[in-house]
């Protein structure tokens, strides 16, 4: 069973000619089949965690370890991490001029699976996955994220999640900027992947709204660069009622 283990992770970022520590010792274990929600106020470092795990060059790891099934993730390049089974659904997916969605998906699937998918079954696979996400077939011929609405971008991210079948999926504020209908469609997509039992999900969000559609096994409160409280789904209800104030006042209380 695939396991992502994050131990005492410290991460800095260069900003305004100064080095700033964003993650200050994160400990978390995500196992295949589990869903962990990471919730926290803006600026707490949630997205830094997501991007650091995926290997974004902007972030410098200054301490700690991350392993996927015992393999050192931090030693891997961005593409190696993806091929090892990590997937990051981005909050702000990037436009890629000149590359069609269909070309992109196929190139990506080829890289992840280690061989080009058979064309006939692939076309069917993509078509069905798109239908499930209420995506127009014409979408496949558009350039990646170019001119996509917020909802289209997120559906496209989840489409990739469904097709690439990672071991661990990190969803970085996938719910942000979505109306209720889009949120439902996207959540159903995530749930289909979760129901296979083959993916560990790290759901990063500011709001509890998405947790009505995607039920987490564990909820972690993230504040000031680390996890300050962990619990079950009931912790989300508490956050819904009380907000993050208790965790932000006076900075890191722990």
């Amino acid at each position, binding site marked *: 069973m695939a396991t992502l283990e994050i131990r005492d992770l410290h991460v800095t970022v260069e900003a305004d000619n100064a080095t700033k520590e964003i993650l200050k010792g994160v400990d978390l274990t995500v196992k295949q089949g589990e869903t962990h929600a990471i919730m926290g106020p803006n600026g707490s470092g949630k997205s830094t965690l997501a991007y650091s795990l995926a290997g974004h060059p902007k972030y410098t790891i200054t301490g700690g370890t991350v392993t996927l099934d015992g393999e050192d993730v931090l030693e891997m390049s961005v593409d190696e991490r993806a091929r090892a089974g990590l997937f990051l659904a981005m909050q702000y997916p990037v436009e890629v001029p000149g590359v069609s969605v269909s070309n992109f998906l196929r190139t990506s699937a080829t890289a*992840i699976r280690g061989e080009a998918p058979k064309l006939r079954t692939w076309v069917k696979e993509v078509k069905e996955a798109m239908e499930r996400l209420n995506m127009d077939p014409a979408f496949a011929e558009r350039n990646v994220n170019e001119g996509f609405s917020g909802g289209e971008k997120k559906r496209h991210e989840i489409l990739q999640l469904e097709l690439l079948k990672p071991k661990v999926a990190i969803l970085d504020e996938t719910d942000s900027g979505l109306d209720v209908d889009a949120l439902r469609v996207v959540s159903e997509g995530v749930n289909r992947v979760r129901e296979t039992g083959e993916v560990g999900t790290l759901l990063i969000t500011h709001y509890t709204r998405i947790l009505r559609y995607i039920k987490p096994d564990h909820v972690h409160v993230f504040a000031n660069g680390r996890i300050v409280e962990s619990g079950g789904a009931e912790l989300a209800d508490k956050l819904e009622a009380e907000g993050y104030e208790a965790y932000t006042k006076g900075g890191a209380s722990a």
Partner: protein
Amino acid sequence: MAEAQNIPVGSTTAGSIAVAAESTVATRMSAPPSFDVADFPVPHGREEEWRFTPLERLRGLHDGTATATGEGVKVTVEAPEGVTVETVGRDDARLGRAGTPVDRVAAQAYSAFEQASVVTVPKETVLTEPIRIAVHGEGGTAYAHQVIELGAFAEAVVVIDHTGDAVLAANVEYVIGDGAKLTVVSVQDWDDKAVHAAQHDALVGRDASLKSIIVTFGGDVVRLHPRVRYAGPGGEAELFGLYFTDAGQHQEHRLLVDHNVPHCKSNVVYKGALQGDDAHAVWIGDVLIEAKAEGTDTYEMNRNLVLTDGARVDSVPNLEIETGEIVGAGHASATGRFDDEQLFYLMARGIPEKDARRLVVRGFFAELVQQIGLPDIEERLIGRIEEELEASVA
């Protein structure tokens, strides 16, 4: 690519639609067209037509100091049966019909060439094989003049290949008879030090068509000036261009389509990729719709993909419309960059860096390459683009 977005630092993307004749295509030039180099002052670099060009790298083509040497370029013409290939003197009456030099370097070329090459496809001759013209630089300086003429209803594909090392200034004329169809591919695949400045003048006959494909990969400085005029109504011109500008290279394409008669069409699509420090691409797209040119249909577009920091693009579309009685007129210019975020996004989907760059560049050019309609040329271009990318990764 969305319009004019993601413009990297140091590039300009400007567009203008000049309705009144305050700054026109003609008045922006520092002297009226002439065959005589003496009619043009030596440019100093601030003139509208020279302001993007590194004059100091033209090796004297612009100021009269570049003297032709014996071993300038070697020109080889391979033509199918039925085509006449001649070398003629300066006084041949067939020279200078398609256009007149509009800047000093073109006039210098016209004033200095000793012999011209004239390739003629007789009327109603439809070629099944292309005419191949190899221009190979032998390391010297040369002035050249080339005329390609298609008689009425003739059809031909001409492939002009520029390779080797040379300092070359040239004028190329395409005289396209009524109802004739000319496809011409000009590939600038020069060695790194070559300097190539040329004016291409096409005169498109009544109901005739021109498809021009300009492909620029090599050279230190390449500055091409394709120009189109129409000899009668019903003419069509498609001008496609593709360039791949590497570190230190200056590649400049300045186009003019002069809609001087009614009911003609033009479509201009140029796309370029740039990579490396001081890679500089310039695209000037002038379209003039004269008052008498009713029923004109024209569109021009330039797209640039900046692959690395340190490259610069100047893209200036310019549309002058002197009559409102037209079918359509439009232009677009956009410069986007392939940046670290795009690379991260693609790599985060398992795609190795090299493949990610290749994917983006191939995608960028694919649509244009497919419009060429000549499979062997298309394959060669894709292959050449891959080579450029390989070189950049190495």
